[in-house]
């Protein structure tokens, strides 16, 4: 892991932690808290992206005090590896390929988060996901289905937009900056 990799990972983590501010200002129901991880996957590689995801998870817990999110580290790994695979296939070259890939990731990450939420917290974690879960459960759906549906719906939108934004960032990179990242297949 070179010094450059470390600096880029640090940037990715910071983006993960800060981008929520912008999203909140726009009143959008997403977090984009994996955008930095996806960016690192495209710029550096899978190991770096996993490190970025895990570090983000820990620091988000430290900053917000909500350590209940720590067990979801596995989801970060899924996101990191998928994003790297997608980058290698040139998915980020066009929005028309990036957005569907993001949708698929949303399904994957939501699907991974659901069993964690179910087993670790019985379907209840802080925030909007739990509210959706409760409503669905009250409507009569079995708990596991309710948890999965809740995880998925927020994640689909979130990851689709994240992939779209990373695609735009990579395309907007000036030539001399892009040349610094050998992992970018232009």
């Amino acid at each position: 892991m070179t010094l450059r990799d470390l600096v880029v990972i640090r940037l990715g983590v910071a983006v993960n932690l800060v981008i929520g501010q912008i999203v909140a200002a726009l009143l959008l129901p997403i977090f984009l808290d994996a955008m930095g991880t996806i960016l690192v996957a495209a710029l550096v590689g899978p190991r770096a992206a996993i490190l970025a995801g895990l570090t983000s998870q820990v620091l988000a817990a430290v900053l917000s005090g909500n350590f209940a999110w720590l067990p979801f580290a596995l989801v970060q790994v899924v996101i990191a590896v998928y994003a790297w695979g997608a980058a290698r296939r040139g998915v980020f070259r066009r929005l028309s390929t990036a957005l569907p890939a993001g949708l698929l990731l949303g399904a994957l990450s939501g699907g991974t988060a659901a069993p964690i939420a179910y087993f670790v917290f019985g379907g209840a974690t802080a925030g909007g996901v739990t509210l959706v879960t409760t409503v669905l459960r009250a409507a009569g759906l079995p708990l596991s289905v309710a948890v999965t549906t809740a995880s998925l719906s927020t994640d689909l939108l979130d990851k689709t937009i994240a992939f779209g934004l990373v695609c735009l960032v990579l395309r907007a990179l000036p030539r001399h900056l892009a040349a610094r990242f050998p992992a970018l297949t232009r």
Partner: protein
Amino acid sequence: MSAPLLRFAHVTYRHAGALAATLVDVTLEVSPGEVVALAGAPGAGATTFLLVAGGFAPRLIGGTLEGTLHSAVAWPGIVFAAPWTQLTGLCQTVLAEVAFGPAGLGLPRAAVRAAAEHALERLGVLHLAPRDPATLSGGELQRVIVAAVLAQEPDLLLLDDPAAELDPAGADALYALLPDVAAAGAAVLVATPDTERAARVATRAVRLDGGRVVADGAPAAVLTDTPAARIARAAGCPAPLPLDADALVARVAR
């Protein structure tokens, strides 16, 4: 005359992804004890020259280097214009930040602390030692950064427009340090648009244009575009032209 620290022989360097070379056929030597001012328009290659001289390019930023660069440099130090990006981010106090370099050498604690405090004192910011770097002004922070670099006792000190964030008094003080650093046995290369201040302390000047060395010699001969020199030239003063305000005043008063 000591052996050269750096020897450029027909060095051409092209940044990664760039279409043209930034340094073209550069041949020169730099010896310990020199303070070399690098002049040139933005984009002429001065910053790149510093990076290549310090062994940072192509090692850290890629690119291709042709020609040969012989370097006897053991530990280069580099100072950029903007202080914020030069912080390690790991240190909660100014003292820790400045001690970071010496601490990496595994020296005993007392020696590390002494090196850090001495460097802070040289820059006149010892009183900032317990402060959090995030609370400092741009000028204070830049002085801390320079102290941090000096604390490592580099044998090659590279500066890229180091006084950009400093007020005039701070800038004067910073440039005044450079001869002392050179006297201790280091070579100092400073790239700056502030040719007047550089002229006051430089022992030699090199002008770059389009990546080529177009002038290399005494500051009085090379740095002829300082405000004072331009005034003197317009007034018909004979060579060597005065390069800074004090010299101009002295010449006129004669």
